[in-house]
């Protein structure tokens, strides 16, 4: 996919996301979780691929987010499903920081 198909959206202020406290944001109908790890920001889908749960309500440990409902672990940087019961990865999105704004790149929609 070329960059022309990606559109960056301002989703949060850098102050709003800490290493311990991720933030849930929406872009259109997409629910995305914004995380901070070692000073860098990351964006991955916020709805668990296994069952309906908001990942940002989960617990962060060692670069992984644990689903609050069934305990599946996902890698925050890549969205990769690390443990049962999840077998499908969370989608991850490109993140840019512009001043104090966190920008997330998602595929352009038709509208």
């Amino acid at each position: 996919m070329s960059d022309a198909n990606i559109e960056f959206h301002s989703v949060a202020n850098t102050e709003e996301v800490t290493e311990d406290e991720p933030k849930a944001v929406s872009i259109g109908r997409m629910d995305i979780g914004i995380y901070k790890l070692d000073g860098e920001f990351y964006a991955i889908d916020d709805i668990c691929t296994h069952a309906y749960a908001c990942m940002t309500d989960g617990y962060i440990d060692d670069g992984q987010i644990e689903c609050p409902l069934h305990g599946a672990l996902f890698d925050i940087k890549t969205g990769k499903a690390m443990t049962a019961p999840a077998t499908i990865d969370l989608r991850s999105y490109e993140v840019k920081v512009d001043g104090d704004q966190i920008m997330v790149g998602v595929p352009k929609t038709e509208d």
Partner: protein
Amino acid sequence: MNEDRTFLIIGASQAGGWVAQTLRHEGFEGKVILIGEEPYLPYERPPLSKAALLGEVTVDSTYFWSQETLDEANIETQLNTRVIAIDRNVKEIVTEGGTRMGYDKLAITTGARVRELPVEGADLPGVFYLRTMENTLAIRDAVKDGTTAMIVGGGWIGLECAATLTKLGCNAIVIESADRLCGRAVTPEISDWMLEFHTSHGVDVRLGTGIEKFQGAGQLERAVLPSGDTIECSVAVVGIGVIPNAELARDAGLEVDNGIVVDDRACTSDSDIVAAGDVTNHPNALLGRRIRLESYENAQNQGIIAGKAMLNKAEAYSELPWFWSDQFDANLQMIGLPKDWEETVTRGDKDSNEFVTFYLKDGVIDGAISVNNPRDLRIAKRLMLGKKQVTAAELINPETKMQGLLKR
């Protein structure tokens, strides 16, 4: 090495499915056959009292693995098949149809079945239990807007069922013989909160009474209470606990005591047979005692251990028991099996339906129950595993950052 061994799994359940998947993940190349009594592939049970009962999800969507996924992993399934005996002398199982199948290693993941209500009329059409997909589909077919549904048992299943039937427009009446809801699992304060919560959502909860009998002409029409009062109802759902399906193991001479007795690697008293899930009585090193769990997490993780044990690769299994329940818009979670605690403290606000109650013992957390706060519950789990010293005052204080307590 050419692998010609056959590993059989009795019980096409969550635990059984994880045994099979684990065998493949670990590189086992022999035959893996998953045998189940029900017509379904291993499915998720949590939706049975919620989304599946509401009719929001299809049966297929509750499968842990699709048929294609199982085919790709070369996991054979033999559904609609009841196993009636294990012949350990010749290492064969016997099905109801009389077929014998040989095994090199065997896993028993037969789960549990509902405890039946021993009262007159309990066999009337209209009286249901809730354990299987078939049960859920039958209840869903029997209720409609305005149906009065009697729920017997104010435990997790009963309360989840009451919440879902209320959402479907039924008048749900919960009958609980104890003097409070979920009495075996939560503190009296949380029982009070649950009563208030369900009542405020329109559930009619009656404590301290059982059912004398059910009556009706060929179909349930009313329940009669010991007081002599009658309640007109066309549907009843009984949720009064389960019994482990351990008879197969017992009859085969395996050690059974409130479930199949296994060690911390899911091995039974026969070195070629493992067992996992609701059916096992297993040691828990973190709690320092033997337990039998009816939980999602145990079915999954003990299943994984059992699969590894069949390949002699198992590590010791022990984790803090964890449960959850969804009722109306409340997500309840519990960690640990607190026993002999000294005090309980609550963080958050019960009136806003968002709080955590901690059980404290010797300055550490011995268990916790959260309502609409899964994150703090997860932190409580870490605090428990790390045996972190905490005080009631700091847990209650809303200024305390829970995650900060972990850094001690």
